[in-house]
């Protein structure tokens, strides 16, 4: 993928926009089975990220993602801050030294990001967390890449799987995070972190699609 650094910056702009647009909805989801702060926190975090990465235009993707990571860790707070921060940090490490990012690189980055979230939060699939959107997304991405599909298409598959995974959290019983305090009352509500994860994956897929040939 040519111009990876520009696309990375575009991705971060899009994620910021999407977090702003969906802050109220994410907070609403986090009110039903949480403490009503997820949307506010994600928007605050990416609002802090944006000017920093704008000032780094032209730097490699890994640098932008690392700054994203440290900024999220320093501004988001809650459960989402360390989890997304770790995700972006691991993705940055996976892309270190790379300037032209191909689909295998993207897969490596996604893999590392998800592994980071699981290592930090210790959640498995089925516990009603962001892991439930990201695991199917990564699996779909891997399958598509191994089938030789191009990056935009592979990411479309990932986003679709993330959406399905997000929706699949609705009937789940939460066994991680704040929602787990509600026990069975967590059933019937979509997980906020899975929702923000889906939105992030979709934003990535959209930007890559828009920038493809």
């Amino acid at each position, binding site marked *: 993928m040519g111009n990876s650094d520009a696309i990375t910056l575009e991705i971060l702009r899009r994620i910021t926009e999407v977090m702003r647009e969906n802050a109220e909805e994410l907070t609403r989801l986090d009110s039903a089975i*949480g403490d009503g702060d997820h949307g506010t926190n994600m928007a605050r975090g990416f609002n802090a990220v944006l000017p920093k990465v704008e000032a780094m235009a032209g730097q490699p993707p890994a640098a932008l993602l690392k700054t994203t990571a440290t900024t999220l860790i320093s501004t988001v707070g809650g459960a989402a801050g360390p989890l997304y921060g770790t995700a972006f940090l691991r993705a940055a490490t996976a892309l270190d030294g790379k300037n032209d990012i191909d689909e295998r690189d993207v897969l490596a980055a996604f893999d590392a990001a998800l592994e980071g979230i699981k290592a930090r939060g210790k959640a498995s699939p089925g516990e009603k967390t962001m892991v439930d959107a990201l695991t199917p997304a990564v699996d779909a991405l891997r399958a598509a890449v191994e089938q030789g599909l191009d990056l935009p298409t592979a990411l479309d598959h990932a986003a679709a799987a993330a959406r399905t995974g997000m929706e699949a959290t609705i009937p789940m019983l939460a066994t991680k995070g704040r929602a787990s305090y509600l026990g069975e009352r967590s059933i019937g509500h979509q997980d906020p972190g899975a929702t923000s994860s889906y939105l992030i994956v979709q934003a990535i897929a959209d930007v890559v699609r828009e920038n493809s040939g």
Partner: protein
Amino acid sequence: MKKLINRPEDVVREELEGMAAAHPDLLRVDPELQVIIRKDAPIEGKVGVISGGGSGHEPLHGGFVGMGMLDAACPGAVFTSPVPDQMLEATKAVNGGAGVLHIVKNYTGDVMNFELAAELAQAEGIEVRSVIINDDVAVQDSLYTAGRRGVGGTVLAEKITGALAERKASLDEVEAVCRKVNENVRSMGMALTSCTVPTAGKPTFELGENEMEIGIGIHGEPGRQRLPLASADEITEMLVTPILEDLPFRRGDQVLAFVNGMGGTPLMELYIVFRQLHRILSDRGITIARSLVGDYITSLEMAGVSITLLRLDDQLIDLWDAPVHTPALRWGV
């Protein structure tokens, strides 16, 4: 949403500026970085004790900064765990060369952010220990939950731990007494109303005129059970019974009985609850050796109450009685 605030996104910074203006004798406050530090920190040779968590639980934790309790507190956004930068700054600011203890309420976000901070502090050569407080009996501590929440026991842990640290005890001793408190304290709460996070603009959940939530936490989230409104005596029984059964507390035990207002409940009602709590404990041969009644760990303007019982021994009584000088708790000085 009716609150005495300016812009919702500024509440924490403005509250910190207000605390700095109100308590210049006790605190120094960095409203940008958002850390509240005991004015005379660091104290050479003393273990530094810090805590932190989302704002909205005042006076916890910032109101407990001062002699004999916390050396520093890190307030996050409302109901949002603070970020590692805050705890790192606080840890460095209170480092008297004898190590630093982090008192961490058991929430996924709090635990992770404090962990990151501890790693960063260790990397800078400061020995950091962490004790997680998880006294809430409303949640099962099992593989199927994020574990028991840290609630009212946190206040007692901060006081007792801070008292021992004030005496220049070692990091091992200070950590041990904090764990001892955690092991001997149990809590449970309930709510008559929810609360409104300023940036959310509306209550986190709605309760009907005849409904209450049993087993709530301190972040405005729904509890374990929604029930029809009951009398104060019945509610007190509902809260204290699982507490007693969980430790368990036994005939002959001495306890610190802590009846805590969630923010919107009049003090009169807390005393009505204490009355029944005293009767129940009395019937069970449990003696209240110390009491604490008031709003100490709140959930914004939530109407409700939590009960915390700490099983006491001579050491814990001595440390509870030790002098303390903070905005929200003061005696012996």
